[in-house]
């Protein structure tokens, strides 16, 4: 069988949250708008800024106070996460009217495989992208940018580096033209390469994406092994493939339906937590959320992982450790006991700004080994009752007493999606 070359698009919504708000509030037209985590607090973070606000120098993730200083007439909007999810699904639906191969990659980015639909546009994928762009704009008021190539990594790269910056919002990046395009870009533009990785590449003498692509893979593995030890071969190959634009992964619409391999929650705290007492409160709350989701999906997990991070991401402090429990479980108190062990063993006393709990290595919760010394049935019956209450009336209907202490975050979190207001 002849290999048919694919045509993949990565469509990205411009300033998604801010654009949704502008589309819903015609009175904001022509004004700079930001969506900010907590408009009442100047220390809140800018989640999205519309192009007008960006033109005044406002950037995503900066403090609201700084944004106001740069752009005093900025309109500040409280996030509505549930609405953004609804619009994102509406956009997926629009893409699906062109091809059934649509894979959401995040709330504002989706992969579209249009190989099978191109004949209706006489093979002109740029024209097709422009039509989809118009369609989404007309129905939702959101402007999308399209990176187009023969695979997902090149489509993503084309979008991030070119389509977001050009006039039309559509850019085609052919794989045989990388030498004059992608390879001329500095190494920090490489997908998946963060600050620290960029720094490491520079110290290896790799300054551009082309330098990386043209380093023989075996040599790159050797260079990375010297820095990161034996287990870096996989990452070496990953970066090398990204730089060379090699990616055979399919656009997978059902990717989100597959059973998860782990379930985790993490939370950024409103301030630094410095005592074990305080950390235990959020640890319990996170464990409860994780276990609640596992119970809802019918999983019991045996491996528990706990992570804590300090506030300064450039000087990382904290830990991420896991342990195997005696038996698989989804009973909050049992998982919490193990989580506290990890916290007590690995926390070095530095202030903590971000806490995460993850449960993994699942088995089906219908069949489980009876434990001799634990009255699991009683806790399970209790949790069935509290889960049912929360399902019906929301997570804040019943909670643990510690959640009412100043360290507790459960009440605040129950009104949020992804850490932001619903």
């Amino acid at each position, binding site marked *: 069988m002849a290999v048919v070359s694919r045509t993949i698009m990565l469509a990205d919504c411009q300033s998604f949250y801010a654009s949704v708000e502008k589309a819903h509030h015609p009175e904001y037209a022509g004004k700079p708008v930001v969506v900010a985590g907590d408009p009442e607090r100047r220390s809140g973070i800018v989640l999205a800024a519309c192009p007008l606000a960006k033109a005044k120098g406002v950037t995503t993730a900066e403090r609201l106070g700084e944004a106001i200083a740069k752009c005093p007439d900025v309109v500040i909007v409280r996030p509505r996460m549930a609405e953004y*999810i609804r619009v994102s*699904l509406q956009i997926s639906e629009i893409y699906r009217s062109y091809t059934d191969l649509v894979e959401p990659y995040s709330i504002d980015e989706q992969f579209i495989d249009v190989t099978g639909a191109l004949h209706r546009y006489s093979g002109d994928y740029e024209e097709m992208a422009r039509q989809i762009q118009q369609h989404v704009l007309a129905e939702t008021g959101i402007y999308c940018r399209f990176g187009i190539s023969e695979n997902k990594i090149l489509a993503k790269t084309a979008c991030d580096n070119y389509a977001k910056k050009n006039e039309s919002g559509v850019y085609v990046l052919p794989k045989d033209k990388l030498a004059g395009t992608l390879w001329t870009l500095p190494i920090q533009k490489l997908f998946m390469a963060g600050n620290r990785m960029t720094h490491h590449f520079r110290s290896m003498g790799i300054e551009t994406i082309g330098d990386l692509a043209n380093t023989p893979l075996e040599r790159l593995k050797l260079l990375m092994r010297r820095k990161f030890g034996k287990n870096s071969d996989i990452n070496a190959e990953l970066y090398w493939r990204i730089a060379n634009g090699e990616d055979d992964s399919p656009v997978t619409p059902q990717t989100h*339906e597959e059973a998860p391999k782990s379930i985790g929650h993490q939370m950024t705290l409103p301030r630094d937590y410095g005592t074990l007492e305080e950390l235990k409160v959020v640890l319990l709350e996170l464990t409860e959320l994780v276990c609640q989701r596992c119970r809802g999906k019918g999983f019991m997990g045996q491996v528990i992982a706990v992570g804590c991070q300090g506030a300064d991401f450039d000087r990382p402090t904290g830990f991420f450790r896991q342990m195997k429990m005696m038996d698989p479980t989804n009973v909050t108190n049992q998982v919490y006991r193990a989580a506290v062990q990890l916290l007590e063993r690995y926390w070095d006393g530095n202030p903590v700004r971000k806490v995460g709990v993850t449960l993994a290595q699942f088995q089906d919760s219908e069949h489980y080994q009876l434990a001799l010394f634990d009255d699991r049935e009683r806790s399970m019956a209790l949790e069935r009752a509290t889960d049912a209450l929360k399902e019906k009336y929301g997570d804040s209907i019943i909670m643990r007493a510690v959640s009412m202490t100043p360290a507790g975050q459960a009440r605040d979190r129950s009104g949020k999606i992804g850490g932001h207001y619903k």
Partner: protein
Amino acid sequence: MSKKLQGNGLWESSRMMLPEHKAEIVSSAKAAKYRQPSELDEHEWEQISRAVAESMELRQPIALRMYHPYEETKVIGTVERIDHYRGRFMVDGEWFEIRHIEGVDEYSA
């Protein structure tokens, strides 16, 4: 080989999806698969009832397409009993609803 380098691994390991967004995708995908029960005309019903009666009387296996809200299901076997009063029939010791039958398929062993 690592999962990051296989299948859709690169994108599964790097994506940022809100659990609430994921849940909505899954539930709307399920809703899209919802099937309306098909309405049969008299002729089709006659064909079905003849096939079911023949299967029971002649001890012949048949394949019946059955309605299910999300899946394509079939009952394959010999009809053992028919309970007209409660509107059900038995294959292999298990009762099925007569009103869920959507058609007869060619039986192939």
